[in-house]
């Protein structure tokens, strides 16, 4: 499949020249084309931020909702129609800050969705305030004396919660990111891919070069099915590991677990209202 089928003609792209978001967009389009997933089969869900605008630049079904609220919407779209492939895309601020509560409890539900987080360690859209992943002492127009809090570690948080697929990538490496993304999309269950992404305008510390110098890929010696080992690697900060940290292939998904699909696999949104069932339900309460 030609990745061009995902192009939107004359899209008025709001990103700065050189932004890592462009390469992530390119990577996603190529991944989908290589997996032969056509636009009608997909829903992109996002919150608010520069990353959250990505669905506007790719031909697909889209729900671009509120800041921090991409995951509950994703889980529900999946629940009413499990045949649809969901890709949730948003920034580090949206996903881990205001969306933090949803982020945690979504892992417990384990819907079959792929969650891409553009992690540029800053609030890009709102012009450079600290995000939950901003590093200590990072100076911003708001945190003028530097960030005083410890950064949030999404990878170790989700491994602690036994998330079913956990990976970190770097936007500057399209080839490797594509491989990770393919596995994440094919994986059944919740998949987090935190993608390091340079923000050329508001993060002059964690630049393209910084990410290159401060990351390395996990090699074959890493056992992706070993949760403890994955956790140990996730807390490394001297250099940040990239690649797949952890997979738990044995978890049931949200859709598997909810009552409407226990006996009937027909998507809820394709079922008809059944007045006899309702009557029976009401009578059962008498």
């Amino acid at each position, binding site marked *: 499949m030609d990745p061009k089928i995902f192009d939107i003609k004359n899209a008025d792209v*709001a990103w700065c020249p050189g932004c890592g978001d462009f390469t992530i967009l390119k990577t996603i389009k190529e991944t989908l084309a290589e997996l032969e997933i056509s636009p*009608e089969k997909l829903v992109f869900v996002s919150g608010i931020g520069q990353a959250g605008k990505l669905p506007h630049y790719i031909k697909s079904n889209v729900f671009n909702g509120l800041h921090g609220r991409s995951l509950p919407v994703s889980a529900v779209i999946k629940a009413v129609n499990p045949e649809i492939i969901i890709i949730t895309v948003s920034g580090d601020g949206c996903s881990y800050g205001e969306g933090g509560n949803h982020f945690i409890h979504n892992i417990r539900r384990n819907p079959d969705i792929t969650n891409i987080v553009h992690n540029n360690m800053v609030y890009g859209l709102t012009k450079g305030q600290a995000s939950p992943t901003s590093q200590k002492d990072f100076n911003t127009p708001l945190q003028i004396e530097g960030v005083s809090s410890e950064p949030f570690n999404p990878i170790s948080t989700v491994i602690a919660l036994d998330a079913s697929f956990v990976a970190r990538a770097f936007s500057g490496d399209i080839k490797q990111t594509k491989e990770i993304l393919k596995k994440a999309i094919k994986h059944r269950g919740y998949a987090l891919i935190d993608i390091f992404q340079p923000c050329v305008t508001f993060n002059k510390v964690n630049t393209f070069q910084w990410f290159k110098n401060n990351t390395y890929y996990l090699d074959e010696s890493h056992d992706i099915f070993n949760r403890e080992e994955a956790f140990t690697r996730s807390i490394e900060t001297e250099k940040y590991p990239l690649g797949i940290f952890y997979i738990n292939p044995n978890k049931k998904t949200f859709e598997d677990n909810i009552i409407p699909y226990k006996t009937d696999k027909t998507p809820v949104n394709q079922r008809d*209202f059944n007045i006899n069932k309702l009557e029976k339900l009401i009578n059962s309460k008498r």
Partner: protein
Amino acid sequence: MDFIYQKAFNLADHYQIPVFILTDQYFVDIFYNQPIFNLKDLENENHIIKTPANYKRYKITANGISPRGIPGYGEGLVVVDSDEHDEQRHLTEDLELRTQMVDKRLRKLKEIEKEIIPPDLLGGSNYKILVIGWGSTYGPIKEALDNLKNKDISFLYFKQIHPIDPSIKNILNNAEKTIIFENNAQGQFTDLIKLKTGFEIEKKVLKYNGMPFSVEEVERNLENFIGGLTHGS
């Protein structure tokens, strides 16, 4: 039988808007015998269309309603956005388009106004005194009026409190005296009636200690309000 909840769902589906049903502790805590619902009256509307290839989620239409598609049903792509957008869905900062989209959304309100549930008038239509209530004040007011057996008093009970039809002013104007019972501290519905109709209700009885009105309390307030009139003609 009216199914208010069902109407709310159908309205929300048809107009693609949130519909709020207000409740309170009295409503959720009371128990009473309820006849079995007549499900034959259920009207389960379906407003989802099968999308054509060139589907536009925010199509500008005369009544303001853009036909609603969902992903995976039909040939079109469905794009929903929380920021201002064009008909296709693209984000826009075009000021003219912004005005058109606001107008489109407001045209829906005109349609919704055609479906307002009018208030119920309980009692005769030749009333001198009109008691107004909404929500859970229904029971105590109705029972108080049944006890008083005064043909001069009628009860105007609102099931829908927003939007309201400005023509209710005529019903209010027909009364010599008007009194409203509200379970809140500021009489918000009194203010809303004034805002939408210009009509000023003469007497507000407000109770906001967390308890519902008792029948005796309504009777006492009515007696005070109309002096010796309670057991009149």
